[in-house]
């Protein structure tokens, strides 16, 4: 294998990891703080992609779309949490999983009604349409942007959780929500806000993915299954785990489809299986 190919595949893996991180971080945060596995999370990613398409079509500005879409998706997520999930936190986890499954069905089918069955392409912004020459290869600049975006969000989230007062409250609720409640944290509000923020991140991921993958029906389930593998590898509820898991799955998918294009999915599951043999709760997870 030539050095140029090695660099190109590595960059491809990193771009995919960046997108996966934007989705899986929300999944892992919602689990860590709400103890809910959000099956609808992939649909919020999908909504982000379609809203991104609409926003670009209406305004003609990609950056504007990238700015507007995440808050909209976040609002939708927060509204859904406050109107449904909020009432069943005391039940066994299966009920919350199934509730989000029902919501996923409703949202996915609604998107089909609104946008129809054909995939919607989104033009990358003029700034990122070309390629750049680096490390001896010519590489599409939009994918480099995805690598940077994933990294940026990761660092920003880490700073928020570790260095701000609001982040402290979120971590407290994650660790022991009853105790946090006793100490005066508004747990219900934290839950709604975290759920909304997670959906907003998924929406950002979807809007950012659209120029590369187009917005299509079925992108939600494709990404949620990969994101599940990411969080299982990294450990549910762990931010670092989600980052490492994204890198592993991104690499497995990219190298897997390069060597055995038919069986890339199989490689991903094989890697997951191998890791789970040694780390039953994922690399950074805690025993349930």
């Amino acid at each position, binding site marked *: 294998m030539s050095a140029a190919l090695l660099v190109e595949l590595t960059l491809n893996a990193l771009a995919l990891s960046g997108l996966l991180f934007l989705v899986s971080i929300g999944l892992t945060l919602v689990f860590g703080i709400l103890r809910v596995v959000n099956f609808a999370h992939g649909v919020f990613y999908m909504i982000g992609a379609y809203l991104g398409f609409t926003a670009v079509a209406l305004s003609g500005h990609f950056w504007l779309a990238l700015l507007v879409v995440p808050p909209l998706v976040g609002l939708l997520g927060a509204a859904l949490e406050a109107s449904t999930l909020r009432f069943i936190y005391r039940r066994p986890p299966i009920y919350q999983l199934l509730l989000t499954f029902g919501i996923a069905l409703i949202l996915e089918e609604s998107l089909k*009604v609104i946008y129809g069955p054909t995939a919607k392409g989104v033009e990358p912004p003029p700034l990122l349409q070309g390629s750049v020459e680096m490390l001896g290869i010519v590489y599409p600049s939009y994918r480099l942007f995805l690598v940077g975006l994933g990294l940026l969000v990761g660092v920003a989230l880490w700073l928020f959780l570790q260095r701000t007062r609001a982040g402290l409250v979120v971590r407290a609720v994650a660790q022991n929500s009853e105790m946090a409640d006793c100490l005066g944290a508004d747990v219900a509000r934290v839950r709604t806000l975290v759920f909304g923020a997670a959906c907003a991140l998924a929406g950002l991921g979807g809007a950012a993915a659209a120029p590369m993958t187009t917005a299509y029906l079925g992108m939600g389930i494709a990404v949620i*299954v990969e994101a599940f593998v990411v969080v299982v590898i990294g450990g549910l509820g762990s931010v670092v785990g989600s980052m490492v898991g994204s890198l592993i799955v991104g690499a497995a998918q990219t190298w897997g489809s390069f060597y055995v294009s038919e069986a890339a999915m*199989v490689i991903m599951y094989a890697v997951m299986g191998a890791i789970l043999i040694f780390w039953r709760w994922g690399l950074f997870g805690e025993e349930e």
Partner: protein
Amino acid sequence: MRSLGRVGSLAALVVLAALPWVLARHQLSILTDLLIFGLFALSLDLIIGYTGMVSFGHAAYFGLGAYGSALLLIHWAPPVPVALAAGAVLAALIAAPVGWFSTRATGIYFAMLTLAFAQLLYTVAYKWRELTGGSDGIAGVPKTTLFWGGPSLASPRAYYFLVAACVVLSLFACRGLVRSPFGRALQAIRENEHRFTSLGQDPRPFKVVVFVIAAFFAGLAGALFAPFRGFASPEVMFWVLSGQALMMVITGGIGTLIGPVLGAMVFILIQEVLSSYTEHWMIFAGVVFVLIVIFLPGGLVGTARRWIEARG
């Protein structure tokens, strides 16, 4: 309550036997469909309702059963019961390593592992074109005979009786299972796994065995499905079907065996009725389901039982 249940089951059996002479051809076909998915949901209830393990990949075993019986019938055309046994055993065989692996984890991790394995099997069915026909699936699966040289099962009524017999027998078998010492152990695991362990028992073998048994019955349902519809395609292994099976169990009543069968019936009837009005029936099914999850946590049977008990 006890005698009420007995009268009810007897009445249900009589109705099941009489219906083929009452219903039109199309209705009989829907009823056969209801029963097949009822068996599928019933098998899921063994692991989710009685052992407390949420499998999100149960469609894989339905699909394995469907592919197993479809391939056998297409290539060798044995009597249908042979294909049924083959499909069910194939599902159980694949479920053994998956179950062994997935039961290392519990709770949500278990759910995700079963989902991941199911998607893996789905991918295999989708990509292994030479064997499975890829996305086209296997079409033209024949309904052969009851035994070598025996009566043909090609008529809707004959096939209905085969399905009904399988479902009723499975229901009794599963009821016997959950009332056996083994079944009591499963419920002990569901109620308190830590206590079960501290009483000196290892829950793992119980979990793996019930996972394999559930896969066996799911495989039987799939094996009935393939000749009934005449095809097996990757859709029967897709995650949507796993989710729908969970919806059937919750709708009917988790941990009641008969509930999931009724839940499957309600679910498919809703689908039949709604889909005649709109192709986007999933939206409404989703809304109904969300309402059931929020307002009827015991499902139809659980809620009805509580209502009867409250009335004395």
